[in-house]
């Protein structure tokens, strides 16, 4: 590039250069708003993670939204029964993209100890899961670790390849 970019003197030493992806992902991953949504005892640990001792606000995910329209992240915290499964699916469909799912605890991952007629054997049967957190229930630290893992996953995404900006339906 032969032409020189002219920068006004008052802006010199005040310019950062980055990529669109990086800026976009930084903004998204720093404000992952979860859906207010708990199904069983794992929800208690999720609440503990959001309270002052573990403080999920350090990672920008403290705004638990009461409406799926405003949420980016669904933390499936607990046993998904077959009676609840259609509602879980519906809430997931009501969330705007980009959206992410954390399956928290053994029950959400695989049904856990509930090898029975009433319990869905893993929430990944109905919705795509990004991060699995094992534990019964997982400690708040484990949930925070899952959140950090999800943030790293978001950092690796590119605006050109993510499914929700493709022209054809993903």
């Amino acid at each position, binding site marked *: 590039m032969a032409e020189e970019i002219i920068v006004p003197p008052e802006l010199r030493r005040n310019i950062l250069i980055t990529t669109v992806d990086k800026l976009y992902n930084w903004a998204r991953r720093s404000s992952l708003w979860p859906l207010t949504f708990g199904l069983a005892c794992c929800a208690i640990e999720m609440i503990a993670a959001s309270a002052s001792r573990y403080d999920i606000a350090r990672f920008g995910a403290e705004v638990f939204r009461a409406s799926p329209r405003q949420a980016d992240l669904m933390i499936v915290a607990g046993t998904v029964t*077959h*009676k609840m*499964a*259609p*509602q879980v699916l*519906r809430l997931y469909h009501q969330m705007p993209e980009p959206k992410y799912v954390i399956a928290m605890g053994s029950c959400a991952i695989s*049904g856990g100890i509930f*090898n*029975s*007629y*009433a*319990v*869905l*054997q893993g929430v990944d*049967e*109905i919705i795509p899961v990004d991060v699995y957190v094992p534990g019964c229930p997982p400690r708040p630290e484990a949930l925070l670790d899952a959140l950090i893992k999800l943030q790293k996953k978001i950092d690796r995404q590119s605006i050109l390849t993510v499914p929700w900006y493709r022209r054809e339906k993903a």
Partner: protein
Amino acid sequence: MMEEIFQLLKEKFPEAIVEIPEEAKDPTVVIRKEQIREVSLFLRDEVGFNYLSFMAGVDLPERFEVVYYLYSMGREPISSNLGPLAIKVYVEDKTNPSLPTVSDIWPSAFQQEQEIYDFFGIVFEGHPDLRRIFMWEGFPGWPLRKDFENRTFTFKELEPTRPKAPYW
């Protein structure tokens, strides 16, 4: 006190009592299902058992049983706390089990009977709103019956049995 109540029942409803099991832990009396409403009204109004603590269904190889646990909260005519008194009803018909409701006698029986219907398929005749409360209408089978195969289901497998939106 319980012996007196049994004596009272024997005098008043001699043909309603099937048996009084001696080995039972709580005082128990087995009532014929045709007379359960008369006996319930008598126990509530004249003896004072004004509180139905819980109801349970039992699946035995030869019959179904429904168990009622009664207490008295120290109301008239006997102003002392009585209980528990267990009432049992044998439902011999295993293909179409049914018995009269007591939900208008003790309101706490309302949901207990719905639950027993949900899990055992025992029909309570005269119940104002008998429907499944834990599983949905159309769920295959009665989960707490002994012949129910307790296996896991996939979401797709149960999808055709579900009520259509927005009535779930």
